[in-house]
């Protein structure tokens, strides 16, 4: 079977790639496009470390075929900072030590960014439920939740 030719937009850049029909989006991001920020934890949609947005909606890239990206808009962790300028969530995660080993961090950041775009003033409970699909085995979550709430407060103050 011939490979499929896919035209998509990743982090604002028109992007083309060839993929097998059964490749996942995560396979292509990591192995074809060298965008290794998105991690594979479980490969079954349980851990959230492969989180990206597809047409502005948060999804697991391990549960999406690369072929489905044709004509779509993808955002990954690689597009979160603007050059050297970190996104406020990234900055706050660093300041608050909201990460340890770092494997879950790209997914946490993408998921948290998606939350704040939909709800700039979430309660702690809303943050915890929104991030329930992002597993972290290091931090115990508390610093992550605080970092998201603090960032939300900062961003509301700045707006």
């Amino acid at each position, binding site marked *: 079977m011939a490979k499929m030719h896919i035209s998509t937009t990743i982090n604002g850049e028109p992007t083309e790639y060839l993929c097998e029909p*059964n490749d996942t989006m995560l396979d292509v991001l990591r192995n074809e496009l060298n965008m290794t920020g998105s991690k594979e934890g479980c490969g079954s*949609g349980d851990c959230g470390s492969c989180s990206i947005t597809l047409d502005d*909606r*948060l*999804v697991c890239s391990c549960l*999406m*075929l690369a072929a489905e990206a044709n004509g779509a808009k993808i955002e990954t962790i690689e597009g979160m900072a603007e050059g050297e300028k970190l996104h406020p969530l990234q900055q706050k995660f660093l300041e608050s030590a909201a990460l340890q080993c770092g494997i879950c961090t790209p997914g946490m950041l993408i998921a948290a960014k998606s939350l704040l775009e939909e709800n700039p003033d979430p309660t702690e409970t809303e943050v915890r439920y929104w991030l*329930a699909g992002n597993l972290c085995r290091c931090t115990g979550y508390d610093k992550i939740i605080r970092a998201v709430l603090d960032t939300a407060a900062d961003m509301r103050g700045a707006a």
Partner: protein
Amino acid sequence: MTDTQYMAPQTLDEAVSAFAAGGDTARILAGGTDLLVQMRAGMVEPGVIVDIKKIAELNSIEETPDGSFIIGAAVSGAVLAEHPTFGKVWPGVLEGLNLIGSTQVQGRASAGGNLCNGSPAGDSVPSMLAADAILTIQGPNGRREMAVQDFPAGPGRTNLEAGEILVNIILPPRAPGSSDAYLRMIPRTEMDIAVVGVGVSLTIENGTCTAARVGLGAVAPTVLLVQEAADALIGSTLDAAALDAAAAACSAACNPIDDKRGTITYRTKVAGVLLKRSIGIAADRAKGV
């Protein structure tokens, strides 16, 4: 290299032709939250994957003038949750669907996929039975309708014929004083498979229950419609005696498995408890409390 083929047709006719031509190894792709897991686990190697999300009819929500909702089989839980009126009319259907998986999974997973996956523990299914939903199905021999309770055939199996695709889910118009609710028991608050799930739909007129349907999940090879429980509620004021009789009917309908999530005794008892609680929620909603 793979022998798998992927296609994303724009029309239902194309999808039906391709799916039927693909035979046993063809798979429908909606949200992919079951299919991609099965592929990865090596449980299935599809010959052809037919992505139905480009077909307008399968990816839209229509509220008809008479008050029905027609939900395309591929509409995700997140999209349905954002609909301006659906969750007000069918809060129980929506809360069942929105309990499935994480935010990420909600962005993709559909009620149609939940039905087609055929799990007895599918969280959106009991409320759809309680809602008396009608399914539209299209296959090589044309289009037909099926009552939702006739759709599941057993764990992982449905009554779709070869080559047939689930097109949409139709929820009927609501009488005044109607609402619904879904409750499930899991050992934690999120991200788990139901030990028991109960969906209830009620209509209450002047304090009397005039219509009721009960869907029961995770306690039998398929999700069940429990007519005896509904019969115990209809005509009552939802008093303690009626609730006890309905709960007993729910427990009597159980034929569960015994596993690490819950024993047979536990699941059977909890089915009755959850029924009473979900009736309380649906009744409050119906009365606008």
